[in-house]
């Protein structure tokens, strides 16, 4: 069986793109608002720079001295590590909770609902204090037969250091928020995708992993990036555990020693901004990866609408949008 891959364009088909034409010589419409706002913004920026340069309280010399201080750099490292690990933990927990929430099994749905209810409903500061005191509340974890012999026991003090208490506290709190984000992402995938996968004989697990989650990621990644940046700043609360090596604690410590809080606040603010910038770059690449096949404007393949238009033209017609769910 054969059919022509590219039917010859009918005589009524649009002319090829290479045909010569004279472009319109156009003068831009006047936009006085643009100029007025530009002048106002420029004046404000100049005023701000003048204020920053001339204000002696800001102590730029101290800022420069401590921007690359060993304690500060170590603080940046710990803050980054806390952010990454707690986001990884949060995402894994959230994906599990979101999938459980969609399950047919009422027990799994209930457990997931309870987790989200508890961890989203208690302030993260309170949760961090709780995890800091976990070793006091639960000194020993015993694995064995209930009311019977012990098989294995560990002291929580040896396992749960302040750092891991902070990671678990931040991660479990974050997971409750992310679970709702991931759930709405999973629900955003067209039901036809599940039907088509079922018709091919794919198992529920494979459908989720191969078809639903990759498409949901496109919707999930932007709020996930938002949450990561939020997490970066939430790590400044870990002194509640107490964990005392992160960026905020480090700069506060130096500030208290020197009695100069303002320049050290600037140091911390500059570093948080720098890390946020790096995270935004990462988010851009994640969005590009999971947007492949979806976005006509920035397709991973660099083809997009042009290619489809070419396909449509070669078929000698102009279709109505055949896949409205793809064009969001």
């Amino acid at each position, binding site marked *: *069986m*054969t*059919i*022509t*891959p*590219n*039917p010859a364009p009918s005589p009524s088909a649009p002319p090829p793109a290479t045909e010569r034409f004279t472009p319109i010589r156009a003068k831009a419409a006047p936009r006085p608002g643009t100029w007025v706002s530009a002048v106002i913004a420029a004046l404000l920026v100049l005023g701000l720079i003048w204020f920053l340069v001339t204000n002696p309280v800001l102590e730029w010399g101290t800022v420069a001295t401590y921007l690359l201080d060993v304690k500060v750099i170590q603080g940046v490292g710990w803050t980054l590590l806390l952010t990454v690990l707690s986001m990884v933990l949060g995402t894994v927990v959230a994906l599990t909770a979101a999938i459980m929430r969609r399950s047919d099994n009422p027990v799994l749905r209930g457990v997931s609902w309870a987790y989200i209810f508890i961890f989203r409903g208690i302030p993260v500061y309170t949760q961090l204090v709780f995890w800091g005191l976990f070793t006091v509340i639960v000194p020993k974890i015993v694995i064995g037969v209930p009311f019977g012999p012990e098989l294995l026991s560990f002291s929580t003090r040896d396992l749960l250091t302040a750092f891991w208490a902070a990671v678990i506290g931040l991660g479990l709190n974050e997971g409750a928020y992310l679970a709702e984000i991931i759930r709405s992402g999973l629900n955003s995938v*067209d039901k*036809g*995708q599940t*039907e*088509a*996968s*079922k*018709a*091919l*004989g*794919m*198992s*529920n697990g*494979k459908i989720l992993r*191969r*078809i639903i989650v*990759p*498409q949901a990621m*496109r919707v999930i990644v932007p709020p996930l990036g938002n949450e990561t940046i939020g997490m970066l700043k939430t790590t400044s609360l870990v002194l509640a555990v107490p964990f005392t090596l992160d960026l905020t604690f480090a700069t506060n410590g130096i500030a208290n020693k020197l009695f100069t809080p303002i320049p050290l606040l600037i140091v911390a603010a500059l570093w948080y901004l720098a890390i946020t910038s790096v995270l935004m770059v990462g988010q851009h690449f994640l969005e590009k990866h*999971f947007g*492949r*096949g*979806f976005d*006509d404007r920035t*397709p991973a*393949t660099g*083809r*997009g609408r042009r*290619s*489809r238009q070419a*396909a*449509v033209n070669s*078929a*000698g*017609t*102009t*279709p*109505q949008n*055949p*896949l409205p769910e*793809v*064009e969001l």
Partner: protein
Amino acid sequence: MSQNPQNPAPGRARAARTVIQLDGVHKSFGDLHVLKDCELTVRSGEVAVLVGPSGSGKSTLLRCINQLEEPSAGRVLIDDVVQGYAPDPLPDGRWQKLTSAQIAAQRSRIGMVFQRFHLFPHLTALGNVMEAPVQVRGLPKAAAEKKARALLDRVGLADRADHYPSELSGGQQQRVAIARALAMDPELMLFDEPTSALDPELVSEVLTVLKDLAADGMTMVVVTHEMGFAREVADQVVFMDEGRILERGTPEQVIDHPESERLQGFLASVL
């Protein structure tokens, strides 16, 4: 068997094995009774075309065949095997439902093509066709790719293998969807209004593929409004109205000599 002298499929004349059998199938969604006591027999190599006004239950009947819908009453048999339940009733007379994995295995032998394609938008045309053979059958990637390229060539899209669905026209997307279903070597194919979402000028490229499949002896059930296609390719035309099968027979009987007033009215509106 073959009613169509232009389509002498090899072996179709003596092929008499029943592939699909629907016995007294009912389906209701709550109070809405959408299928009423439907009987259907489709033999190996046969093309059955379901026609009828929208809302008459054609798509629901089709979806019962591969268990995308669960019949409320009656049985669906594929190759004499009950679908969705264990072969024999339990001692108390109830029927043991199959697990989702067992149902998936039954579905994997039935290809389905949807009105709105439902290609996987995050995979290329090649990826779409390779997905099920690799994930369900466990075919090695290289072998699956070779097979997928051959299938894309068969539907005339060899040069579009690396394009994403959003880069293809509707007719091309539907042909990829057909190749995706064929990749599982299905015993029968279900088509749910495969050309209804297409522009008139793109319809023929999809119908050509369907005709070639029929000529190759594929067992097919097609829901469509294309009466020309039904007349040319169908061995059996089934007219449904308000959830019931009102008439069935050869295209000559059903399309040219309709008996019921409902069918006469329907044909007058589509022809």
